[in-house]
C-alpha cells in the first residue's frame, strides 16, 4: 500500500489496528532487554558510580521530547500547506505525549543532577530551553482545548508549533553555544561516541524500545482523536446542525 493512502483516516484506523500489537510486543521486548542491560549488565561509571543508570531513561526521554516536537512541526506543515485532517490529528495527539516525555526528561535529569552536580536545577541554557519546550507543549494543549472548531484550532496550533520549532535546535546546540553545567554532546560527535560500548549498547536498546513505545502511544492517541472527530460530526448531525 502506498504510504500516501494511510493519510485517509479510515485506512489509517485499519492499518494502525494491525500494527499496534506488533509495536507493543517490540516495545515490551526492547524495554525489558534495555532495562536488564542498563540495570544489571552495564558497569557503574568510574566517577558517577551507579547514578549513571539514570542516563538509560533520561537520554531517551530527552531525545523523544525533541523528536516528538519535530514530528509535530512536520504535521503542522501538513495542516497549513495541505490542510489534511490526519496532520491535524497527529498534531493534537502528539502534544500530551511530548509533554509527558519532556517532563520525564526534566525530572530524571534533575534526579541525576543532584548527586552529580550537587543541585537539582540550574538556569543554564540546556535546562532552561528544555523547560521552555515543556511550556510550549502545555501552551499547545491549552490552545487545542480553548478553540472549539478543530480546523481553526489546528491552524492556530500549527503556527504556534512552527514558531516554537526554533527552540529545538537551541536545545540541541545549547551545550555548544553556551557554557553550561549540563555536559556536552557525547554520542553524536565527530570521531564516534565518547561513551564506552558497555554503556552505549544498553542506551541504544533503551532508546529503540522507548521510541517504539512512543510510536505505539501516538498511534493509540491518534485513533482516539479520529473517533472523537467522528463523534463530534455525528453529534452535529443529531442536533440538526
Amino acid at each position, binding site marked *: 500500500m502506498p504510504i500516501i493512502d494511510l493519510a485517509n483516516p479510515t485506512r489509517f484506523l485499519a492499518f494502525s489496528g494491525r500494527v499496534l500489537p506488533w509495536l507493543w510486543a517490540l516495545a515490551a521486548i526492547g524495554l525489558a532487554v534495555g532495562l536488564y542491560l542498563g540495570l544489571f549488565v552495564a558497569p557503574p561509571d568510574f566517577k558517577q558510580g551507579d547514578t549513571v543508570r*539514570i542516563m538509560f531513561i533520561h537520554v531517551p526521554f530527552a531525545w523523544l521530547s525533541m523528536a516528538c516536537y519535530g514530528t509535530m512541526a512536520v504535521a503542522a506543515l501538513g495542516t497549513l500547506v495541505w490542510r489534511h485532517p490526519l496532520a491535524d490529528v497527529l498534531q493534537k495527539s502528539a502534544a500530551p505525549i511530548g509533554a509527558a516525555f519532556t517532563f520525564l526528561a526534566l525530572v530524571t535529569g534533575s534526579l541525576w543532577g*543532584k548527586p552529580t552536580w550537587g543541585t537539582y536545577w540550574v538556569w543554564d541554557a540546556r535546562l532552561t530551553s528544555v523547560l521552555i519546550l515543556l511550556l510550549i507543549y502545555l501552551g499547545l494543549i491549552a490552545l487545542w482545548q480553548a478553540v472549539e472548531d478543530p480546523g481553526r484550532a489546528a491552524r492556530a496550533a500549527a503556527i504556534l508549533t512552527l514558531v516554537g520549532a526554533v527552540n529545538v535546535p537551541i536545545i540541541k546546540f545549547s551545550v555548544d553555544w553556551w557554557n553550561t553545567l549540563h555536559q556536552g554532546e557525547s554520542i553524536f560527535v565527530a570521531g564516534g561516541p565518547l561513551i564506552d560500548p558497555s554503556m552505549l549498547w544498553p542506551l541504544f536498546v533503551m532508546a529503540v524500545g522507548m521510541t517504539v513505545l512512543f510510536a505505539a502511544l501516538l498511534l493509540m492517541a491518534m485513533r482516539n482523536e479520529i473517533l472523537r472527530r467522528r463523534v463530534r460530526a455525528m453529534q452535529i448531525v443529531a442536533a440538526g446542525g
Partner: protein
Amino acid sequence: MIAPGTHDGFIIAAYVIAVVVLVGLFVWIVVDGRTQRRRLAELEARGVRRRSAGSSKA
C-alpha cells in the same frame, strides 16, 4: 549490577516516576479510547450517521 550506595534513592525515584507517568499516560489514552468508542456506539444505536460516512473521511 547495582551495588548498594548512597545515591540509590535518586536512581529508584527516577525509575519509579518514569513508570508512574508512562503508565498514567497509557491508562489515560486507553480510557479516552473506550469513552470515544462508547459514544460512537451510542450515536450509531440512535441511528445517527456521519454525512461523510460513505466517503470514509474523518
